[in-house]
């Protein structure tokens, strides 16, 4: 695993070790076998929650079907012991392999779906399996008792051993989650959760990461399912494939907090004993009482802390400890750090070598959505090292053009060449890897993640290791002047800083061309100067820039050349001076009336 995630794991290691140790010691003092069972099932459901969290918590694709993996694991362990006498020490890891395989098989077709459709499709897998197993005659499988070799078959007289084993599995699942969390893996999943399209544009092969996540998640769920079979000794389809198994996984995770390795653990530690004890104490007098109280507890926590206990507590404690992130005004760009910023703001930076080599060549490209011809027969060339401004009224097709350039959509007609090679039909993440970075109109940072981690997401595309990616992200932040804010939570940044952060995220992938979509929108005149000076500096360092913008005064001083779009077609192209005098452009922007009155 990569260096960064190991460092991250070290931060978690102390509380994790402390927690596991306390739990293990507590277990040692439990003598009642029923309580020993509770001490065992808490980590079992924690692992199930962690498995669910690994896929759904980080990637945002909610699965209602994790019972499929859990049940397969349980039945695999039971059946292999019954028929072949395979000891659980072997069959549980093998169940994990089976779960991984099942995850992959489920993921390949199901990841074509998004949102609610994905969630509901996942629901179908365990339920279909439930009936199949009933039909196969496995209504109730009992694991044979092996008095001859109890240890070999995990049939301990001392039930605390089960709890310790379960604890070990939980420790493993937490470590795995910790390793994934801050590595390229977890970052990619988070990026997918935030905005799948933007993640593709940042060079992330979203399908591959989602498949890896469901494979690992399925392996974890099947492993713990197999262990559960050994603990309970009896496997029935409703107990392992039922709705409640899937629900339990997501309940412990959501209750504790989604997208953190502590969430499912907190959820299991609180909820599982609660429900078990209620069942034991009151279940005989008031049937269903544990379910009612359990349900009420869930409802109450969701109303108070809709994002889960972990985040609520963390947000509260952060608010108490840290006064607030630095306000905008006390975080100026330090002149000595970026010597070129200050004095070159108003004069044009020497052009890096605007050669004749075309980076992008767009030839007769058209794209229609239904009846709307969004882009019509557009041809243009972007030359290396230049800053090209794309302007035009709202709805003129500017963003559609960007979507064509970075592969979000395929043109109906025409050719798009990147450095001479056609990119029509390539996936966005490949086009990103080929050197096209992009920002979006709507800035959507990961608000709880640090500025550095936000930039890191964009850095993986050209980095061989986490260390390299981190270096690239840091360099990108320095380029845009956000080094000082590196460790702040992105949620505390000002509007301008968010724009710079997005720029940094795109830069971290070392693009040859940067497509900037309304990077200056909504900024004050002072902020605009600062952001444009950064853009100019990037161009001076050799990054070709294509920028969509409405803020004309800034654009006129920023760009080398304009392409004016109107109604999907190129209305005019040329130097800023000619464009602002072009009657057709004046019409499109200010309207004919303006010219009539001011001519």
């Amino acid at each position, binding site marked *: 695993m990569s260096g960064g995630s190991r460092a991250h794991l070290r931060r978690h290691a102390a509380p994790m070790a402390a927690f596991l140790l306390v739990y293990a010691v507590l277990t040692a003092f439990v003598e009642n076998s029923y309580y020993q069972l509770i001490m065992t099932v808490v980590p079992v459901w924690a692992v199930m929650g962690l498995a669910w969290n690994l896929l759904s918590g980080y990637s945002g694709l909610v699965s209602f079907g994790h019972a499929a993996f859990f049940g397969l694991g349980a039945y695999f362990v039971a059946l292999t012991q019954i028929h072949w006498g395979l000891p659980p020490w072997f069959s549980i890891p093998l169940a994990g392999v089976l779960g991984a395989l099942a995850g992959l098989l489920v993921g390949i077709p199901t990841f074509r*779906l998004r949102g*609610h459709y994905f969630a509901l499709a996942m629901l179908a897998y365990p339920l*279909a399996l439930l009936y199949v197993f009933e039909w196969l005659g496995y209504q109730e499988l009992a694991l044979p008792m092996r008095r001859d070799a109890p240890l070999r078959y995990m049939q301990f007289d001392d039930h605390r051993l089960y709890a310790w084993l379960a604890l070990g599995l939980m420790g493993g699942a937490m470590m795995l989650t910790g390793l994934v969390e801050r590595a390229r893996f977890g970052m990619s999943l988070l990026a997918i959760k935030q905005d799948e399209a933007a993640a593709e544009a940042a060079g992330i092969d979203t399908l591959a990461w989602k498949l890896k996540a469901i494979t690992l998640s399925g392996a974890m769920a099947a492993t713990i399912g197999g262990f559960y079979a050994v603990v309970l000794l009896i496997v029935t389809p409703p107990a392992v494939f039922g709705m409640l198994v899937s629900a339990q996984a997501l309940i412990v995770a959501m209750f504790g907090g989604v997208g953190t390795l502590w969430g499912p653990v907190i959820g299991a530690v609180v909820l599982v004993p609660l429900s078990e004890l209620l069942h034991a104490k009151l279940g005989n007098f008031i049937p*269903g009482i544990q379910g009612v109280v359990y349900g009420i507890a869930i409802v109450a926590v*969701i109303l108070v802390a809709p994002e889960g206990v972990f985040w609520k507590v963390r947000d509260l404690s952060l608010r108490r400890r840290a006064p607030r992130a630095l306000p905008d005004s006390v975080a100026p760009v330090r002149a000595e750090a970026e010597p070129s910023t200050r004095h070159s703001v108003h004069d044009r930076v020497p052009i890096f070598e605007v050669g004749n080599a075309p980076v992008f060549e767009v030839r007769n490209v058209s794209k229609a959505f239904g009846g709307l011809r969004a882009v019509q027969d557009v041809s243009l060339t972007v030359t290396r090292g230049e800053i090209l401004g794309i302007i035009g009224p709202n709805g003129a097709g500017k963003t559609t053009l960007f979507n064509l350039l970075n592969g979000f959509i395929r043109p109906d007609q025409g050719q798009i060449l990147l450095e001479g090679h056609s990119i029509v039909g390539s996936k966005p993440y490949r086009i990103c890897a080929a050197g096209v970075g992009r920002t979006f109109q709507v800035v959507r940072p990961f608000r709880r993640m640090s500025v550095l981690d936000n930039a890191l997401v964009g850095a993986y595309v050209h980095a061989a290791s986490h260390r390299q990616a981190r270096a690239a992200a840091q360099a990108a932040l320095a380029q845009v002047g956000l080094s000082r804010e590196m460790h702040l939570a992105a949620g505390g940044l000002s509007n301008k800083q968010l724009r710079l952060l997005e720029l940094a995220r795109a830069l971290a992938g070392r693009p040859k061309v940067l497509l900037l979509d309304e990077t200056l929108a909504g900024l004050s005149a002072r902020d605009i100067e600062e952001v444009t000076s950064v853009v100019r500096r990037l161009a001076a360092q050799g990054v070709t820039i294509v920028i969509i913008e409405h803020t004309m005064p800034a654009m006129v001083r920023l760009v080398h050349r304009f392409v004016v779009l109107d109604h999907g077609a190129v209305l005019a192209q040329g130097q800023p001076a000619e464009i602002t005098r072009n009657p057709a452009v004046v019409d499109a922007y200010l309207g004919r009336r303006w010219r009539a009155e001011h001519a």
Partner: protein
Amino acid sequence: MAQFVESFLQALTAGLLTGAVYGLMCVGLSLIFGVMRVINFAQGDFMMLGMYVAFYAFGLLGGHLAFGAAMAPYLAALIAGPVIFLSGIAVHRLLISRVTGIRGSALESEGHYAQLILTLGIALVLQNGGLYAFGSAPVSIATPLSSSAWELGPLAGDSVSVFVNRGQTVAAAIALAAVLAFVALMSRSRLGKSLRAAADNPEAAIYMGIDVDRAHRLAFGFGVAITAIGGGLLASSYPFQPYVGLEYVIVMYAGVVLGGLGSVAGAFLGGLIIGLVQQLSTLFLPNQLQNTAIFVVFLAIVLLRPQGLFGTAARRT
């Protein structure tokens, strides 16, 4: 051959009759999803409540022979509607409105998790509360109609005849009538139109002066009430217990997704198809695999046509 034709027609009839009731149940769920964009896991448990309301209402009505022993179960099912409507309104006002609607949209992207787990919590409370209140023994509503049938035929030269269960036929007819009444409400009344407007575009609905919170509450109330009536109708031909909702929430979601999330007519057809698949599968598969057949068809359709059989490609996510 005649044997097969007969079983086929028999299964087809049974499928259409149960399918019509499933269709009604799906319409209720689809209304909630369409207007609120919430996956309501408690839908099956409101249906269960509806079944018990019908059960107790039948107990009260059964004594008064003026109603006729034959029709009392259906009247009881209809009574479940308003009762569950009121409980739905209450649950929405007290709980669900706190994490959905305009307030919900202010939350971060994790907001939809909150709705989901909230309905799961409500489902747990209802199921287990039901266990306490109603006991775990399965009950059913006995009606002379459910054990009598009309014989169609003999058809095709004496060899084929189909038996049509009278109880199920009445239930299907009531379900169909309820769906038509609901469709009329949605397409004709100002209330129905305002619900559709809130479903289409909640923000614009507010600009029209439509109270979207109230629209959500009404949609939730109507949605669970409609499903409860469906449950009440089903109660006279199938025994049930407090956990019955779990089985049907899946059937309902399969139907709703088949029809295209959020489309009322689609949901009815989706439910009908689920009923047909369930019954027709018995011709080729062992009985236990009825539900597996549903899920396989469901998965196949979701994967091939995620917008649903009758939905259009455009969808809000």
